[in-house]
């Protein structure tokens, strides 16, 4: 069955302040959706709420992945169900090597008694790291500790590649990347595009979309998706900014939170 991801009327608050004011979005396997919008309109909140960050309270709406209620699941269950969020600010964890972490994550998905063999795992990890032009020594470095911004982002993509999720959310994966790293990250994402995998790409800039061509582009403002279109919408936003959208829809500036 091809992946079906559906968000209906999703509302979310942080510390009592409503950030998401009703999001509707359907993503099918094989599709790439981009969400764009000015800073502080709730884009990253959407990503965190979908993943289940404890700080974000979902107050209304539903989210399903292949018919399963995502909001009922704990964070780790969401991941095992096939959700993956490449984070804007990945945590650094001392003492846990990248390899140990990834093997734990893969095995968590495979379940007890079905653990991946060490040799197979190492071979896979080395292969993917090569594709992402990562230094092999990062395998045994502590998770994200001392990584540059770009290295952290590559490491997020590495995790995505090894965990083979059904629905991938990329939260500002392009921020802090130079043009080479951007190309490598985009190639990694493109290599993962397939009929049974959907993508939700959150970005502030159109730049990333030169490398990853979306099927749908959505504009988010004030906690809602206010406009949807094809790749040409992203190009117009890049060229003309967001003011014309506001004008067209009669939106008065008011930020709802931090991106």
């Amino acid at each position, binding site marked *: 069955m091809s992946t079906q991801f559906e968000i209906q009327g999703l509302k979310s608050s942080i510390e009592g302040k409503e950030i998401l004011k009703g999001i509707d979005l359907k993503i099918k396997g094989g599709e790439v959706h981009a969400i764009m919008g000015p800073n502080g309109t709730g884009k990253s909140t959407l990503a965190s709420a979908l*993943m*289940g*960050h*404890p700080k974000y309270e979902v107050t209304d709406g539903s989210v399903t992945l292949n018919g399963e209620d995502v909001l009922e699941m*704990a*964070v*780790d269950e*969401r*991941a*095992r169900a096939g959700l*993956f*969020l490449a*984070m804007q600010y*990945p*945590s650094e*964890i*001392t*003492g*846990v090597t990248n390899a*140990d*972490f*990834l093997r*734990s*994550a893969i095995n*968590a*998905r495979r379940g007890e008694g079905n653990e991946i063999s060490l040799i197979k795992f190492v071979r896979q990890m080395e292969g993917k790291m090569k594709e992402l032009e990562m230094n092999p020594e990062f395998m045994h470095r*502590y998770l994200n500790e001392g990584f540059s911004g770009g290295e952290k982002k590559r490491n997020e993509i590495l*995790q995505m590649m090894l*965990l083979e999720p059904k629905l991938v959310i990329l939260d500002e994966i392009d921020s802090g990347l130079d043009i080479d790293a951007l190309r490598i990250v985009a190639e990694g994402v493109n290599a993962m595009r397939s009929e049974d995998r959907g993508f939700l790409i959150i970005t502030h800039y159109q730049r990333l979309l030169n490398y990853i061509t979306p099927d749908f582009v959505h504009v988010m403002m004030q906690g809602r998706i206010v406009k949807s279109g094809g790749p040409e919408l992203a190009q117009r936003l890049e060229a003309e900014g967001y003011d014309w959208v506001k004008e067209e829809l009669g939106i008065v500036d008011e930020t709802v939170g931090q991106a």
Partner: protein
Amino acid sequence: MSTPTTSFGREAAAAISRSKNEPAWLVALREEAGQLATELNLPKPEKLPLTRWTLDQYGVSRPGQSVTTASELPAAITALLPEENSSALIVQHNSSVIFTQISEELKAQGVILTSLEEASRNHEELFRKHFMTAYSKDEHKLAAVHAALWNGGVFLYVPRNVTIEAPIQALLFVDDAEATFMPHVLVIAESNSRVSFVEQVASSLGDAASTLLHNSAVEVFAKAGAVVQYAAVHQMDSSAIDIAYRRAVLDNDARIEWIVGDLHNGNSITDTKSVLKGNGSTSDSKIITIGTGSQRMSLTTQAVHFGRSTESDMITRAVMKEEATAIINGITKIEKGATKANGQQTEKVLMLSPKARGDANPILLIDEDDVKAGHAASVGQVNADQVYYLMSRGISRKEAERLIIHGFLDPVVSEIPLKGLREQLHRILERKLG
């Protein structure tokens, strides 16, 4: 709990010494220390009163059974040995050293590994020049008791320019709760030598009703340009008290690396101190501990800078569970004249229970202007963002916390120089963190 106390003083100390046929100068030394033991007060660890500790039960001499080959060692001891076929191994069982093994190759290079008791007879000059000079018998009552009653022990001598590749192992094991168990480790590394020493303290005391006092000391002397790595893993039953005063004295350009797992299950006082006497000497101390049950611990690391351009770094990491208490002190002292010295320290405490207590006290005492010194201390719980991050990859909360807690200790665990001991350490951590 009433515990039989061995009355103890000058006479008792001398009697012990004579019973072992020790040289007259050592009888006198023990006698003097025995006298001091009756006069001096207990140490006063920061925020940790010792008033209810049983520190006056010294036990009686219960020598272990000496053996000549490793295969004859008791099974309980063999099970604890991290590496088979060690090129250098010494084993203390209860009140005496029962086994010493050193390869012909090391012997040919002039390396000496014997019990400290034997060294007092065969290497008098080296012994007298160093023993209890870095850890003075008049520091406090525990030091005096140790100087009077020490038994078994390890003497390691590394001649100048000799590099020893494989770590020297010492296993100090007690399974008789009534035994006097007070080993003293004396390491002398001559100029430009290199050695790695691994000390393991373990017990099997069963349901002993009495308290065992492990009143131990380590003295390391690193002469000019020598590099000594000293790894210690302590874990005994909760009925034992672990007292470990560790001292290193560094000459010019010498280096000490302390890698310590203070993982005892009962009350403990440990104090790991480097004296950076020579110019350009350096010290690196890494210490981990896990507090469980209702144990009380005082863990101190110290670096005292005398020499110019000396550097010290001290890291302590503690995981506190249940109702355990740990008072963690880091003391960096830079004396007048120690120009261009650099002393850094970090204490981190991870609290896993609201009833546990972990105090981190960084102390900088600086009497020289032209120096660098820094400290960082933190006490906190498992980081929620880190747990979220790991869970977002499908790892359960329990496993995520386990990874983070073990990871917290890994910077020390991964430095342990013996693979077998590292694995043992992992098992100890699993058990204590379980």
